[in-house]
């Protein structure tokens, strides 16, 4: 009898446990939209069907899609957009469709690695022979942009042109005024100001509760690296051209000096102690709440209307201004690097379009048209005289344009002239946008590079970041820097990566 009861309890418990694990186990089911392939062959006379897929980041097409209507009419098309809000979901869907040989006619590869995988698996059409049919697009994009879409020697993607050049140090002008300090122009002055912000109670509340500098991880120090003519330590910012040669920032002699200087900031106790653990907008929040006086951030996160409301609301006297990149000992000054190899929108075409020339031709037309002045304005601003008016060459956005044209970037296949576009969209902020766009910046090339086989980038990156943190927090002496490099090479095979990178970049024409 006793045995039975134990058995019953066990059974009951087991069933409960099964339900529990059942609950935990579900929820990651693969979301597979039963989207039609849209492969119906159009009659040669009628409009050509094009299915286009991309990540929408939550943007939806409006019921009255005036850009689509215009494009369809102009180019004799029927465009269907397959939009997925989230990058991971999107990648999943594309991978599933690649596996079933059912890719859309034109779609975005999310990263260079994604593009590489797809190209290696033979899913993509090599577009090199078609480039000559793309005069407007190639002229607008330029060679540097086209390079981003090359894998091996083949043009597997048509990248979007245009890249934002933003980010610089922003500083609390009201704090500077209160303490009677000038705008810091060099790294040393920056350190002095940060010290004053920490110790001299710039917010006047009688408590020592302010900090000099905040940011998210090493991003906070990017202009300080720049002051020594080197770039940040991340795997997106390690390679650049110096004196006609491709160099790696970790091997630059000035790197040690840069790290020593950053350590001075940390030793002085003027940096947010949560620098490394700040996530998302935590650093920005601290700045907006009036706890920190200097932050490396871009105008879009600082002076757009909704942002100003937040920090003015927390402190009506607050006044954030932009700083020029601080100068180093030899006068170098660079703000955040621009990763010109970064894959911002790589448009790829599936291999099967080889046999469907009418579709392929329409895609080429679409790129040429959106790269032209007329088409460019259509996909950036909307319909002329409805959403914008032309004043000579200058575009003036109407109220209706501001309201309705928020989604049109989904049609910017050829990309856009970033700074002009932003200045037109955010007219009031033009000076801020220009300030950051004109800041000197090193152009990094990491985005062009494909890792060699056997190199584990994740492990190497972890080692680099951890060791760098040790150097700047004083847990490891900078004299051991060469030992760090040799471990990086022997244990993590970083040398194979650098060799491969230099070779690949030379081939693309960077540094010979």
């Amino acid at each position, binding site marked *: 009898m006793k045995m039975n009861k134990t058995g019953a*309890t066990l059974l009951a418990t087991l069933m409960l*446990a099964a339900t529990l694990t059942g609950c935990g186990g579900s929820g990651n089911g693969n979301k597979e939209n039963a989207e039609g392939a849209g492969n119906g062959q159009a009659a040669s006379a009628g409009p050509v069907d094009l299915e286009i897929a991309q990540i929408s980041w939550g943007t939806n097409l409006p019921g009255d899609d005036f850009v689509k209507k215009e494009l369809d009419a102009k180019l004799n098309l029927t465009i269907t957009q397959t939009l997925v809000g989230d990058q991971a979901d999107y990648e999943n869907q594309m991978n599933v469709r*690649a596996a079933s040989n059912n890719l859309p006619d034109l779609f975005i590869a999310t990263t260079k690695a994604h593009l590489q995988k*797809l190209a290696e698996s033979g899913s993509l059409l090599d577009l090199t022979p078609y480039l000559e049919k793309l005069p407007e697009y190639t002229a607008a994009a330029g060679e540097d942009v086209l390079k981003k879409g090359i894998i091996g020697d083949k043009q597997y993607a048509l990248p979007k042109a245009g890249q934002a050049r933003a980010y610089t140090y922003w500083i609390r002008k009201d704090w500077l005024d209160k303490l009677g300090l000038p705008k810091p122009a060099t790294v040393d002055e920056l350190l002095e100001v940060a010290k004053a912000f920490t110790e001299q109670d710039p917010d006047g509340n009688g408590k020592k509760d302010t900090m000099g500098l905040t940011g998210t991880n090493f991003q906070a120090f990017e202009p300080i690296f720049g002051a020594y003519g080197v770039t940040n330590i991340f795997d997106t910012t390690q390679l650049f051209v110096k004196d006609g040669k491709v160099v790696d920032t970790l091997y630059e002699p000035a790197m040690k000096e840069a790290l020593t200087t950053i350590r001075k900031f940390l030793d002085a106790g003027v940096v947010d*102690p949560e620098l*490394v*653990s700040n996530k998302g907008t935590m650093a920005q929040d601290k700045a907006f709440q009036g706890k920190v006086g200097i932050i490396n951030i871009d105008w879009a996160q600082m002076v757009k209307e909704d942002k100003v409301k937040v920090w003015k609301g927390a402190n009506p006297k607050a006044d954030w201004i932009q700083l020029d990149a601080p100068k180093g000992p030899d006068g170098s000054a660079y703000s955040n690097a621009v990763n010109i190899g970064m894959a911002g929108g790589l448009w790829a075409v599936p291999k099967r379009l080889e046999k469907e020339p009418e579709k392929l031709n329409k895609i080429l037309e679409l790129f040429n048209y959106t790269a032209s002045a007329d088409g460019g304005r259509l996909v950036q601003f909307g319909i002329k005289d409805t959403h914008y008016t032309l004043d000579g060459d200058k575009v003036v956005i109407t109220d209706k344009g501001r309201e309705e044209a928020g989604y049109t970037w989904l049609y910017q296949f050829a990309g856009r002239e970033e700074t002009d576009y932003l200045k037109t969209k955010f007219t009031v902020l033009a000076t801020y946008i220009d300030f950051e766009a004109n800041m000197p910046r090193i152009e990094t090339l990491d985005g062009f590079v494909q890792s060699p086989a056997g190199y*584990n980038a994740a492990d190497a990156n*972890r080692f680099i970041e951890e060791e760098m943190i040790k150097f700047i927090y004083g847990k490891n002496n900078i004299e051991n820097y060469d030992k760090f490099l040799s471990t990086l090479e022997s244990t993590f095979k970083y040398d194979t990566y650098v060799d491969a990178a230099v070779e690949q970049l030379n081939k693309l024409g960077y540094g010979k």
Partner: protein
Amino acid sequence: MEQPIAVSATTKAQAHSSRLRRTMADVWKMRTLYIMLLPCLVWYFIFKYLPMYGVIISFKDYNFSDGILHSPWADPWYKYFEMFFQSPYFSQLLGNTLLISVYKLLFGMLPSILLAILFHECRISWLKRWVQTLSYMPHFLSWIVIYGISIAFLSETTGLLNRWITDMGGSAIPFLNGVEWFRSVLVSTEIWKDLGWGAIIYLAAISSIDPTLYEAAKVDGASRLRMIWHITLPGIRNVIVLLLILRIGSILDAGFEQVFVFYHQRVYEVGDIIDTWVYRTGLQQMNFSLGATVGLFKSAIGFILVFGTNKLAKRWGESIW
């Protein structure tokens, strides 16, 4: 020599077939019960057994346009196992994973048992109801939310706790930033989250203990502590052992979601676990074969552990099967 063997073989076969027949007869007799079991078995087959064929990608250079079956075999076949075992961080990852798991197991189970007993002993039923409901609420919060709460209390610059400490003249403690505190924070937030939830299962087990045992003990003059010791605890012993065995089976799961939300570069050395490594190395770099390999490795270890602990438990007279 041959004769006896043949004879014993036939008798064995006969015995075997008669046993089979008996089993079939039993099944037929209980057919309604087995039919009720069927959907569950089908569910397990479709969702747990069928996907197992995907395990073969850990021996292949998986390539999504070729699919699982047509991707080329890895050369050598243990390529991805080697990649995992030879990562410079392998021993550290394993150590972190085991430590965090064992801490969670040790410090997570006892409080839940204790809480269940307290609920059981509580005589004010409305209080018991309320506290019980409140205690398992945190289980439904996501780790992101709990991280937010932890920041609000424990942050070095803005946290409530640290503000008290500094106001009283102490210096702020880097609960979330420091190597020293990181695992403690992981374990304690986990306990906070799942304390009440974990107690439910024990409470269910306790409530199935025959009440006449308590009555008899009361008649014999046993105090409440005595009753807990001699009736409640032995009554739920099998459940405790069961849960222990199940949890030991998943000892290489130290809680990906939680660690992923909480960790950052400064605490990698104490907080980086196998699953977060797989995320960075396997998923972020689209190395799905590697991810599958590590999953297979973890399952194999888990299987051995469940099997082993069950054997051990059998010696004490408790076991799952």
